């Protein structure tokens, strides 16, 4: 007997292109067109993996994307991809594949002890174990299970490949290019509308590629496929996508496709992405997803060499591979007879076709009998024997009442099973389509959907080829609008689908509690697990799913769901339609993470916003920090300085001479129009009517719930024009909130809002020397203390460049914010910098900015406030206008709860030890020895070492804080005694405010 299982005269692989690849380090020969599974099967190798939980030896059970067993890792190093289905991975020269979940090798595996321990790993094992003593889980079970069970290993290095993302629109998207899909695409395409046809396989044709029996218009099915594809290729309005899986059906007909472009190539063209996600918005979708043959559930049904009948047919007809020498066929459906006939013709010895049904009598059954194939009606498999390969099965008689008698054991190296066909409903369910249970077929079929979607062919229970082609063509034409010619084909030879099929566990003799009859191969869930779950009280199919994990593996229950449902239905003695089906979730098949990330990785993960002086800051050795999307200079260390040293120096220089700071990230909005002042009055808690042109005011924004939302200085540039500033992070939110009230509440106001954040660059020049430095630069503008006091605003030019000059301060020093067009800010910055050199002008960053403002007790929204602080809580009650009839937050701010004396209020905090800097977030409690759980009196919101005070300072929110000045509280620490602190006024430096008016 030949050692190869490859047959000449069969298959679609290219015999002129032999290919060698490595499997577990050893060379394997195959041909172009093979999958890893077909090439291994051609060598007679079924063992391809170990199971998830019990480490059982496993071989392929299918020939496609529904494969639960033969999962392999492909590629090396950073390009290694785990958990790929060997039944789908196309071989090419140099491909490196490995088996998974075996210790140390595929054939010798120590993890197999899990099988012996199987009585201790029942359904709900994880949940039950969680209830054991906590330490037991951490120290004993979890590490053991982690090592012993699982799938492949993900690579740890970054993915070196590139991935694409493409948005597309079409009139008709056809998912699946079997007979129904091809017919639909052609019918739609011929009307001229835009069509996209996609299929997960490298070739179009689906089941027709494995069908050597049917004749369409007098030609073999595969030939009809070639002819139809050629016809489609001629249509310029039709886009054909192979190796492309529709994996997610989103709302409003947005379907995501995953196209695999290079994995099947020995060397990929330069610049081609490995995979591409297509986001297709389709007016209409035709689902032609086909159906999947169901495995049968019997003891030992997971032994290598036990396959779906349709899979064995595919290995023969597409790959020219015979899966064994001597087969038993176990069926409850007519389709397996055609497989038996073809396989016998190809040289396979069929020991018998065991049929669960009492009277199989269709034409194909008669044909099988006529060809000398032994048919055993009313027969089941009691048990399959063998370890690395099935070696024998016990065929046992089933009586009319379902009792199983004593059978006889027959030897075989192959078992072909056929439980009937399950329509693929995944995408229909993702489209939130209803399901209807079909009693005659014993399966769920697609019902109505809210989306513009229709199913065609066997995914809606239409199985006969002539009916499938007609169904597909009608679906395609209707999806295209219904106008046009319906293509018609004549099927001149085909098998009629018979009635039958089976779901659930096959009948067996004796108790099944020790039998490993697998329902979900990938997650190692057995029939007894499902029954146990029901006995333990789980009646909802969704609960059974989670408790047993059936259907939760990466195959999404493609082969297991209907069998699990039938077992639950039988155990509960409740009709399947009363049990329901679990929800199918995307993705239909696993998708590489890299494809989802696409270009959004590394530098392209997020946009980076650069302030105008960013280049200058880099040239001057700044250390940066991210503030939202902005990159901001945090401090400017000199040689040998750490952050504290640099910040201490920067702060001292600002208070002593002057500092320069890029404040361009401040949010800026221009509020313009005849009703601008009225708009400001309604939007802010402050009053604006009396603010004169050329003056500034600190403004606070609340939500209508009364809590502080944002703040910033506002300048009145003209009677009808306000220059509003916001926090760096709040800019977009404030503008959105302004637009919301303007457009939806205050349609009576004539106001325009414009974001000017990016238009105006801002140089903060702060310190006692600021005026001296600036005065010579502003083209004669009078900025003397008399002409331009604190909180004044002037328009002018600086070296000929337009300028809005604000005299404002976030440091407590005499200061200016010089607003100039962003594109020219660097010129101005350089000029100010040069002019400041004789005065000792120092650049400072965000860290010093924080320290300087904290020394002055200025709050930062989002740091002191947390969405529950009122203006009064943070010491800004003075800003609330008493005379305005209404403003955002007015009603809420009058509520008693928002004025309670024991609310958290902003206070200063000093530690006894002046060198100890509190942690931000520390809690404050009344006594040093308080144990958790204890209620806190408050918490630290800001904490720094203050160069001006030469000691630590902090700001806190404390219950009734303002009336507790001088009180002692304690900040507990985990590893040391609580820190004793005293509550003080939050203005630590220059409390009279003299310096700002200098």
């Amino acid at each position, binding site marked *: 007997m030949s050692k190869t299982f490859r047959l000449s005269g069969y298959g679609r692989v290219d015999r002129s292109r032999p290919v060698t690849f490595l499997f577990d380090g050893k060379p394997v020969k195959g041909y172009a067109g093979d999958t890893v599974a077909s090439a291994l099967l051609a060598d007679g190798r079924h063992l391809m993996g170990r199971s998830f939980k019990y480490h059982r030896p496993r071989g392929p059970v299918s020939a496609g994307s529904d494969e639960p067993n033969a999962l392999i890792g492909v590629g090396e190093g950073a390009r290694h991809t785990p958990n790929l289905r060997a039944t789908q991975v196309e071989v090419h020269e140099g491909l490196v594949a490995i088996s998974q979940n075996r210790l140390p090798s595929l054939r010798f595996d120590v993890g197999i002890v899990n099988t012996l321990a199987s009585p201790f790993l029942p359904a709900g094992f994880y949940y039950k174990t969680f209830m054991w003593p906590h330490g037991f889980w951490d120290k004993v079970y979890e590490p053991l299970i982690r090592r012993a069970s699982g799938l492949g290993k993900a690579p740890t290095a970054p993915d070196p490949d590139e991935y694409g993302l493409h948005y597309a629109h079409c009139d008709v998207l056809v998912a699946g290019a079997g007979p129904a899909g091809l017919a639909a695409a052609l019918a739609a395409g011929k009307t001229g509308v835009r069509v996209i046809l996609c299929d997960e396989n490298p070739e179009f044709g689906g089941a027709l590629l494995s069908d050597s029996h049917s004749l369409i218009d007098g030609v073999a099915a595969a030939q009809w496929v070639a002819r139809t594809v050629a016809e489609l290729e001629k249509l310029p309005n039709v886009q054909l996508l192979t190796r492309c899986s529709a994996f997610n059906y989103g709302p409003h007909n947005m379907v995501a496709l995953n196209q695999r472009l290079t994995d099947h190539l020995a060397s990929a063209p330069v610049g081609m992405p490995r995979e591409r996600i297509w986001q297709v918005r389709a007016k209409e979708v035709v689902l032609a997803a086909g159906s999947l043959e169901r495995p049968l559930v019997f003891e030992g049904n997971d032994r290598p060499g036990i396959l779906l009948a349709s899979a064995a047919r595919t290995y023969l007809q597409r790959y020219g591979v015979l899966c064994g020498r001597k087969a038993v066929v176990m069926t409850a459906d007519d389709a397996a007879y055609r497989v038996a006939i073809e396989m016998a013709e190809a040289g396979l010895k069929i020991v018998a076709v065991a049929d669960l049904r009492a009277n199989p009598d269709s034409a194909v059954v008669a044909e099988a009998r006529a060809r000398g194939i032994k048919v055993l009606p009313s027969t089941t498999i009691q048990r399959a024997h063998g370890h690395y390969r099935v070696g024998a099965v016990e065929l046992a008689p089933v009586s009319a009442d379902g009792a199983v008698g004593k059978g006889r054991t027959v030897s075989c190296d192959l078992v072909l099973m056929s439980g009937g066909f399950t329509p693929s409903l995944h995408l229909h369910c993702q489209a*939130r389509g209803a399901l209807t249970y079909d009693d005659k077929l014993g399966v769920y079929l697609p019902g109505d959907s809210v989306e513009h979607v229709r199913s065609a062919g066997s995914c809606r229970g239409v199985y006969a080829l002539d009916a499938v082609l007609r169904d597909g063509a009608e679906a395609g034409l209707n999806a295209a609008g219904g106008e046009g010619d319906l293509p018609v084909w004549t099927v001149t030879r085909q098998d009629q689908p018979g009635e039958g099929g089976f779901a659930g566990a096959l009948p067996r003799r004796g108790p099944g509690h020790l039998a490993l009859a697998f329902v979900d191969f990938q997650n190692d869930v057995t029939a007894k697990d499902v029954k146990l779950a029901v006995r333990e009280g789980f009646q909802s199919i969704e609960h059974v799913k989670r408790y047993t994990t059936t259907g939760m593996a990466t195959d999404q229950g493609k082969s297991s769901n209907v069998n699990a449902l039938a077992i639950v239905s039988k155990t509960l003695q409740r009709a399947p339609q009363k049990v329901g089906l679990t929800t199918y979730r995307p993705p239909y098949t696993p998708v590489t993470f890299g494809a989802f990330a696409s270009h959004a990785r590394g530098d392209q993960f997020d946009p980076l916003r650069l302030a105008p002086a960013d280049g200058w800051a880099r040239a001057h050795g700044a250390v940066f920090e991210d503030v939202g999307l902005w990159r901001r200079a945090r401090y400017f260390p000199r040689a040998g300085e750490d952050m504290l040293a640099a910040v201490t120096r920067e702060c001292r220089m600002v208070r002593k001479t002057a500092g320069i700071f890029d404040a361009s990230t401040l949010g800026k909005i221009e509020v313009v129009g005849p009703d601008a002042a009225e708009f400001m009055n309604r939007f802010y808690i402050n009053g604006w009517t009396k603010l004169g042109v050329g003056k500034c005011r600190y403004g606070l924004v609340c939500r*209508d719930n009364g809590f502080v939302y944002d703040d910033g200085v506002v300048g009145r540039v003209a009677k009808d024009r306000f220059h509003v500033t916001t926090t760096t992070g709040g800019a977009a939110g404030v503008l959105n909130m302004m637009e919301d009230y303007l*457009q939806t509440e205050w349609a009576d106001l004539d106001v325009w809002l414009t974001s000017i954040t990016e238009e105006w660059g801002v140089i903060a020049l702060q310190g006692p020397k600021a005026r001296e430095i600036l005065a010579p630069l502003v083209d004669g503008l009078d900025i003397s203390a008399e002409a331009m006091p604190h909180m004044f605003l002037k328009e002018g030019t600086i070296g000929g460049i337009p300028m809005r000059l604000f005299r404002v301060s976030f440091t407590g020093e005499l200061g200016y914010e010089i607003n100039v067009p962003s594109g020219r800010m660097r010129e101005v910055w350089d000029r100010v910098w040069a002019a400041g050199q004789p005065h000792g002008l120092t650049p400072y960053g965000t860290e010093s900015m924080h320290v300087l403002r904290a020394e002055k007790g200025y709050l930062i929204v989002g740091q002191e406030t947390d969405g529950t602080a009122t203006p009064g809580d943070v010491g800004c009650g003075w800003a609330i206008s008493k005379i305005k009839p209404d403003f955002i937050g007015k009603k809420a701010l009058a509520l008693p709860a928002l004025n309670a004396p024991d609310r958290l209020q902003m206070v200063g905090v000093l530690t006894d030890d002046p060198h100890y800097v509190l942690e931000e977030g520390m809690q404050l409690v009344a006594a040093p020895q308080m144990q958790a759980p204890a209620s806190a009196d408050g918490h630290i919101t800001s904490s720094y070492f203050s160069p001006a005070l030469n000691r630590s300072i902090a700001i806190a929110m404390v219950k009734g804080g303002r009336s507790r000045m001088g009180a002692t509280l304690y900040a507990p620490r985990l590893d040391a005694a609580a820190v004793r602190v005293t509550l003080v006024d939050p203005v630590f430096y220059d409390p009279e405010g003299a310096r700002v008016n200098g």
Partner: protein
Amino acid sequence: MLLIECPYCGPRAEIEFSYGGEAHIDRPGPEVSEEEWASFLYLRENTKGVLAERWRHAHGCGRFFNALRDTRTDEFKAFYEMGEKRPDAEKKEGEGA
């Protein structure tokens, strides 16, 4: 991703829009009772069925508008401008209809 029809720009993908919550909630003045104010701030229908809701074409024309959407199916029944009355589309349907 939803397909949303801005009354000013036409149909665009959901990522261009920001959601604005239930529509047709009138903001009362400060003269109302505390209960009425709390109701305005916090109480929403949580409709199962056709909901009138606000959207803003934030990454487009910037305009707010209203839409009727069936929360069970995400199907939009109507798009209309701020200030227009709720179109007489199916009123809130019963549960599970």
